[in-house]
């Protein structure tokens, strides 16, 4: 048996199912006696609910129940409990769930939903970040001070305002930094909310069994979190809540929070526990369920003439929408990494979350980095211009290196930061930087390039944990069971590769359970933060040690030698000195039978776990702390062809070089990075949640909310540097989100050069560029 471990591009294990229509996602399942739920959602962004008349709806034959916010007294939220699962008393955003109908079929439920009469009394709307912080702004939450905080010291709000989080970074001596600065540049940036748009809309089935067991089938990235949240909110025994997750049709952070599961549970409860299916329409998925944050920011950077940055000040104001969810955590994560991957000794950052009457936000690919990186990378560009310096050179001069510290004072070494300079140097060659950043090619066309840098670590709880279980089959193949969800990147396949590498066997001989079932799968915090291969991979390696230990114990008896002289590899246990003396693992994996019939051992089960360590919550006064184990850094570039007459453009090339530590599966890794880049180009060029006056969403459909389509994608260039993270499995770093992070900034840098105007907002539509050129603000 040859070793097919890490570094090999084996196709995703679930590939045959995905090309035959046999891959099953949550919406594909049904169950006996299934009922269907449909949500009535708010048509106002901010209004008092005066009455809800359900009498006509409940009369329709086939309707079993109608529930509204008045049926329950419950507030939810992972950081601060501010959100009723169904609006109660008032609605705070357009699309907020107000009532739910449960009926025999989806058609009946929809029909009845149309007959529910909600009487609203509209209230003044907070429709922008500026509107949220201006004096005398209406309050989205009057009772903010009375909400329960889930953990102490996670949130710092200003009572009587819409400001619900304030995170500070105070590093070095800012005054001294400004004194040392010969050039100071400053700019403001504005990035809108957007949507995740996983192609599988959020959906769930909930059922309460006769003995009180709650069974949730859902499309989530966080099954164990859903389990815990439901138990907590409804006072259930968590072990009596079983969450099943099959393959997930994309997540991008949007499926990390318990939302629809809570509503489906309430719906099932209202019909005596019968199974209820709740699927969001695309429009509901885009308005009712949480979306991606918006950001207004201000950046000021000072540098000495040689290009070395001396001081920087940041203000980030995050539009978290109507409820906090994980918005406050992203606000914190942005502050923690506020400088970008640059050495800056004197830093001040104030990062705020504000409530608005917009859809609330949750994690999104990059956990906030996408937005603030835009701000810092645009400012770097401005600085390069002011200094008369090559923008790429400026980044190289200031790139973080071992020995430097982060804004939260984490000391850096190659293991935890990697090698940004190497990424930049490679990028420079790959994109032919030296041929010039702006070329007029005739016919009113200009070709231009822009670069950016990125970095990201995770923001996991200090006690986040993962487990892994390995069992041996009679034919010598292995089963691997982990709590990570397969949302697309090929996680289960890479984990099999990590295990195969350790056991020196073929990853194709390792079966990985695709479904997660909280009743039998070992725990894994959440499939988020690009941390799965790191956390679960370490648990798998731990389980492999346990497995090897047991294999050697039995083999040493069979081969009559001490276990120390034995080695595992190629499906066998053999003597290191004389490999021809060996026994197949399949002979001992389920007990070994002596020729005389006496048997020893039994099924060998390897178990392993991993827990985050050395993480330190940020200090409120200075920001000092450590949010994640290591960063992955990278450099990106975009090349465009711009038409100077009408400001249209074509994206020709996009390039990314990331320090991945160790690439586990090259084609999967490249694919995930390209997917991120494509999403970043979409956000930079066209995506945004459009809120009309009054806070009504104008574009909650894929016809009006534009994504990158086939053929609009550029030529991609992806390369990896490999500076090992010493505690990552085989040196790997998480990179699944990173492809998106610097792309909108690189696009804006390229377009600013082409159009010869500062473009400090997204999406960069031709109209926005044209207006900016004419001197109109967006």
């Amino acid at each position, binding site marked *: 048996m040859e070793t097919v471990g890490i570094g090999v591009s084996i196709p995703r294990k679930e590939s045959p199912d995905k*090309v035959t229509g046999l891959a099953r996602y949550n919406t594909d399942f049904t169950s006996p006696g299934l009922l269907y739920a449909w949500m009535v959602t708010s048509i106002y962004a901010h209004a008092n609910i005066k009455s809800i008349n359900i009498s006509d709806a409940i009369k329709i034959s086939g309707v079993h129940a109608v529930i509204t916010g008045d049926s329950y007294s419950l507030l939810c939220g992972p950081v601060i409990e501010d959100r009723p699962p169904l609006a109660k008393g008032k609605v705070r955003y357009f699309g907020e769930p107000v009532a739910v109908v449960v009926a025999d079929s989806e058609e009946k439920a929809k029909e009845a939903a149309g007959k529910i009469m909600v009487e609203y009394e509209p209230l003044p709307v907070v429709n922008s970040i500026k509107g949220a912080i201006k004096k005398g702004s209406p309050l989205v939450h009057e009772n903010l001070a009375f909400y329960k905080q889930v953990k102490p010291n996670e949130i710092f709000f200003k009572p009587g305002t819409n400001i619900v989080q304030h995170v500070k970074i105070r590093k070095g001596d800012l005054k001294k930094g400004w004194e040392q600065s010969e050039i100071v540049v400053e700019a403001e940036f504005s990035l809108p909310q957007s949507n995740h748009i996983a192609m599988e809309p959020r959906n769930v089935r909930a059922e309460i069994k006769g003995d009180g067991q709650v069974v949730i089938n859902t499309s989530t990235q966080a099954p164990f979190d859903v389990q815990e949240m439901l138990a907590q909110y409804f006072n259930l025994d968590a072990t009596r809540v079983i969450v099943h997750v099959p393959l997930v*049709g994309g997540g991008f952070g949007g499926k990390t929070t318990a939302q629809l599961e809570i509503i489906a549970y309430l719906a099932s409860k209202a019909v005596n526990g019968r199974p209820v299916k709740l699927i969001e329409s*695309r429009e509901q998925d885009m308005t009712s369920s949480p979306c991606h944050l918006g950001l207004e920011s201000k950046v000021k950077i000072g540098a000495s003439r040689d290009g070395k940055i001396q001081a920087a000040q940041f203000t980030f104001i995050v539009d978290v929408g109507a409820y906090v969810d994980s918005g406050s955590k992203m606000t914190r994560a942005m502050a923690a990494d506020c400088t970008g991957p640059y050495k800056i000794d004197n830093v001040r950052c104030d990062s705020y979350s504000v409530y608005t009457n917009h859809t609330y936000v949750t994690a999104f690919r990059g956990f906030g980095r996408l937005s603030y990186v835009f701000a810092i990378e645009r400012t770097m560009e401005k600085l390069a211009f002011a200094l008369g310096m090559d923008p790429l050179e400026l980044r190289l001069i200031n790139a973080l290196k071992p020995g430097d510290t982060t804004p939260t004072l984490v000391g850096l070494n190659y293991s935890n930061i990697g090698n940004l300079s190497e990424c930049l140097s490679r990028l420079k060659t790959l994109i032919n930087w030296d041929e010039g950043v702006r070329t007029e090619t005739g016919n009113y066309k200009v070709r231009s390039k822009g670069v950016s840098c990125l970095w990201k670590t995770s923001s996991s709880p200090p006690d986040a944990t993962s487990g892994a279980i390995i069992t041996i089959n009679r034919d010598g193949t292995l089963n691997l069971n982990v709590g990570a969800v397969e949302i697309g990147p090929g996680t289960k396949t890479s984990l099999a590769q990590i295990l195969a590498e350790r056991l020196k066997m073929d990853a194709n001989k390792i079966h990985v359970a695709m479904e997660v079932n909280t009743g039998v799968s070992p725990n894994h915090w959440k499939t988020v933060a690009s941390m799965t291969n790191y956390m679960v991979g370490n648990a798998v390696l731990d389980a492999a040690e346990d497995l090897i230990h047991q294999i050697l114990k039995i083999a040493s008896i069979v081969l009559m030698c001490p276990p120390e002289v034995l080695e595992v590899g190629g499906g066998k246990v053999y003597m290191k000195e004389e490999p021809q003396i060996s026994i197949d693992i399949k002979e001992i994996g389920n007990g070994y039978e002596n020729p005389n019939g006496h048997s020893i051992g039994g099924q060998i089960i390897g178990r392993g776990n991993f827990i985050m360590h050395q993480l330190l919550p940020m200090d409120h006064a200075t920001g000092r702390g450590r949010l994640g184990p290591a960063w992955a850094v990278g450099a990106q570039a975009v090349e465009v062809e711009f038409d100077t007459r009408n400001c249209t453009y074509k994206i020709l090339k996009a390039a990314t070089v990331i320090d991945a530590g160790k690439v586990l599966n090259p084609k999967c890794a490249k694919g995930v990075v390209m997917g991120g880049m494509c999403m970043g180009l979409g956000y930079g060029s066209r995506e945004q949640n459009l809120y009309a006056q009054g806070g009504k969403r104008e574009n909650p459909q894929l016809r009006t909310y534009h994504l990158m389509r086939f053929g609009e994608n550029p030529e991609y260039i992806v390369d990896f540097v490999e500076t090992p993270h010493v505690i990552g499995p085989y040196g790997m770093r998480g990179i699944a989100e990173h492809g998106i992070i610097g792309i909108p900034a690189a696009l804006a840098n390229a377009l600013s050069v082409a159009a010869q105007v500062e473009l400090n907002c997204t999406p960069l539509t031709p109209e926005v560029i044209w207006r900016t050129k004419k001197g109109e603000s967006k």
Partner: protein
Amino acid sequence: MFSLQKKEFMDLNINGEKKSVVIRSADTLLDVLRNQLGLTGAKPSCKNGDCGACTVLIDGWPVKSCLMLAVEAVGHEITSIEGLKETAMQKTFIDCFAFQCGYCTSGFIMNCHGLSRIHPGADYGIIREWLQSNLCRCTGYEEITDAIKSVLDQNAALEQ
């Protein structure tokens, strides 16, 4: 009287088999395939004709099954992803890593398969025009481009 709610027996010709279904005139082909015939390969994503996840072939031509009423499909040959067996397109999608989460994949494969049959010599312009009707949120489309081009090249090589 014409009624959206009234149910009727109809025969659908699906993946080479005749299937009797009881449907309302308002039922979309997508819903009938998934809910009555258990053919869940075609995926609901926008149910508005914007994403192509629900694409099937009708007489060999790709059609968004969320936009077609099941009654309109009567008398036509319907092919869903479950009707494809070991085609070059399916194999090539695996070899090219042309999917991640896989939710858009059935739709893309049906569209690509239809294209390779109807326009075996399609140039990039035609490929682009056809595949613009499908959305993928995970990949950056490069691997899908590789897959369709590779199958068309294989076809061309076979011709010679």
